[in-house]
């Protein structure tokens, strides 16, 4: 039954390590809240990282799989967040008493619809034009949020958004609980998007990315599949929005700026388009590290670098003593973390440019999944006339 292995994607023995690695990583991640070192502030940072992993994986369906450059991804994130906000905040006029678990699937649906809404007008556009129009779409949604004051609370936003209830228990509120919520969501999204990628729909997306005209000549309804990419990616973004709104408890339009779209895109590109681990890594570097740099623990560690500061500062100190005007001096080491965090967009920019120049495929370019197509040993495919077999359809 060698072929059955192939079909059920049972990995060949030498591939087991590659399969076990993700499982081991998930187990490790699941143990994080049990480590006393990771206090609540850490878990909050990890939640943010996890959220960006979810968003990155969602955008990756659009940008990485289907090759559609979408700069308005924040619109879908906002759609989910405001759905959650409008349906549960006491400040909104809508009072349906819906709970988080009902809103989640609704958000999936709403996200897909908003994705179609964006997809329909931009379908004929390619490349740069698509990027510009989607960028505008993201802004339109944000302006709508500001102006539809009666429903969205305008720039005041919506507060006291509900937390997810757990039957027979309390509502999810503690950072460690949210940590698990985002971990489960991220793992689920990673798993499901990999399944889409390895199916007919995923191949159609990739074919469109590679060469849209040829994809159409192969019988792929490119309009339909591009819409599906937008809708699927948007649905994921919308779910991320629901989680974010419920976690934060308070939303207003400043949380849904172009910067979010750019951050998510940067996460996808730095990590390597199409690669789940790349997205995890990108989210950690771009979202997690700047937060961690501002931790007191970080300052405590940096404080011990006084000697380095003295060394670096020596030329400036000398200059300062000589020059009649004030000279910039290297700041105290404990402020370095915050300094880097404040300048993170410059660093992102430089990092992005460096990655695009040095490794256009991202730091972890997506490896082709080969082994599911591992050829059986020759004896098993030997047919008298392979051609005749192929022709007898």
């Amino acid at each position, binding site marked *: 039954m060698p072929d059955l292995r192939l079909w059920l994607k049972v990995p060949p023995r030498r591939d087991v390590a590659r399969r076990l690695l993700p499982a081991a990583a998930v187990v490790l991640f699941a143990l994080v809240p049990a480590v006393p070192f990771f206090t609540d502030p850490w878990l909050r940072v990890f939640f943010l990282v996890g959220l960006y992993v979810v968003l990155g994986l969602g955008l990756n369906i659009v940008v990485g799989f289907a090759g559609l450059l979408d700069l308005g991804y924040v619109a879908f994130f906002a759609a989910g967040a405001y759905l959650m906000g409008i349906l549960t905040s006491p400040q909104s006029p809508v009072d349906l008493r819906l709970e988080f678990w009902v809103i989640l699937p609704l958000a999936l649906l709403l996200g897909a619809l908003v994705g179609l809404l964006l997809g329909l007008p931009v379908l004929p556009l390619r490349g740069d034009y698509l990027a510009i129009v989607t960028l505008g779409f993201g802004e339109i949604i944000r302006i709508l949020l500001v102006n539809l004051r009666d429903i969205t609370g305008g720039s005041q936003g919506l507060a006291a958004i509900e937390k997810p209830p757990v039957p027979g228990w309390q509502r999810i509120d503690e950072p460690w609980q949210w940590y698990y919520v985002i971990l489960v969501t991220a793992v689920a999204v990673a798993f499901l998007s990999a399944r889409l990628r390895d199916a*007919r729909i995923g191949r159609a997306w990739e*074919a469109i990315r590679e060469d849209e005209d040829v994809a*159409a*000549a192969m*019988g*792929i*309804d490119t309009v339909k599949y591009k819409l599906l990419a937008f809708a699927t990616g948007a649905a994921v973004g919308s779910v991320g929005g629901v989680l974010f709104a419920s976690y934060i408890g308070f939303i207003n339009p400043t949380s849904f700026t172009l910067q979010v779209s750019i951050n998510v895109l940067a996460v996808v590109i730095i990590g390597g388009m199409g690669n789940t681990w790349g997205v995890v890594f990108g989210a950690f570097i771009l979202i997690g590290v700047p937060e961690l740099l501002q931790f007191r623990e970080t300052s405590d560690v940096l404080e011990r670098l006084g000697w380095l500061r003295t060394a670096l500062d020596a030329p400036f100190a000398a200059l300062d003593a000589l020059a009649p005007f004030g000279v910039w001096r290297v700041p105290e080491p404990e402020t370095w973390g915050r300094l880097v965090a404040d300048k993170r967009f410059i660093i992102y920019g430089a990092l992005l440019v460096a990655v695009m120049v040095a490794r256009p495929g991202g730091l972890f370019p997506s490896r082709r999944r080969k082994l599911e197509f591992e050829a059986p040993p020759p004896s098993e495919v030997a047919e008298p006339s392979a051609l005749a077999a192929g022709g007898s359809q």
Partner: protein
Amino acid sequence: MSVRPLLEVRGLSVRFQGLLALDSVDMTVPPGQIRGLIGPNGAGKTTLFNCLTGFYRPTGGSILLDGVRIDGMPMHHVAALGVARTFQNIRLFANMTVIENVLVGAHRTIPVGGPDQLRPRRRHEQRLAEVAAQLRGLPGGVVSSLVEIAGALVRPPAWIRAEREAVERARRLLEAVGLRGRENELARNLPYGDQRRLELARALASRPRLLLLDEPTAGMNPGETLAMMDLIRRLREEYGLTIILIEHQMRVVMGICEEVTVLDYGRKIAEGPPEAVQRDPAVIEAYLGTKFARQLRGGHGTP
């Protein structure tokens, strides 16, 4: 003629701004034939292929595939009716693996997405499919899309079976074109000749009735060319294909084409059995001064 032609091109014209790339071209191809399409560079051969596959909308005339009008149809509908092609300048999905390329070619034959893989063969079936599509409108597309996505996520036994059969077929096709064992290589990493063969396998994967080959032996050495000719002949037999072949090497044209159509400046200047076309003064005139002219004169000119 007793058999209904598989392909009927009537008065086909294509104008690009000032340039008349095709000028009232008529062409009739009976089922099962290997038809050569020749002519100097820029004669409009590739343009004709682009019309046959729905990539260009002709400015005049009509194209009938087995009695169904296909000119101006969206490309994927034309493909669904059984037209497949290869490209003069190889256009593989470079960053996908060899077998994935073939699986994309097989897209319509993998039954996972509901009604969109209806493959109407006869005229009334085609009409029926169109009406059904209109009646259903968007909801039909939504339903088939949901079925496809749900199937991909859940992977029920039927999905696994469909995928399994598709991969098995893809592997047989790769074997048929001589690419066995290369399944997992990136298409971009294949040597040139193998890329041409992969394009052929990908085109075959859609189960075409009409196969359009745009210079399949371009850039091949004599040995590879012979192998490719052999392959084309074999594929025609095994799959019951009708083939139109754009070709520059006279030896290939003489070797495998039953009839040849000659284009020059967008007009059909000759048509008939290769031996007759080869002696046609208009053809010799069109090719005057080109390398091809020597081949014409020499009969089986050197490649």
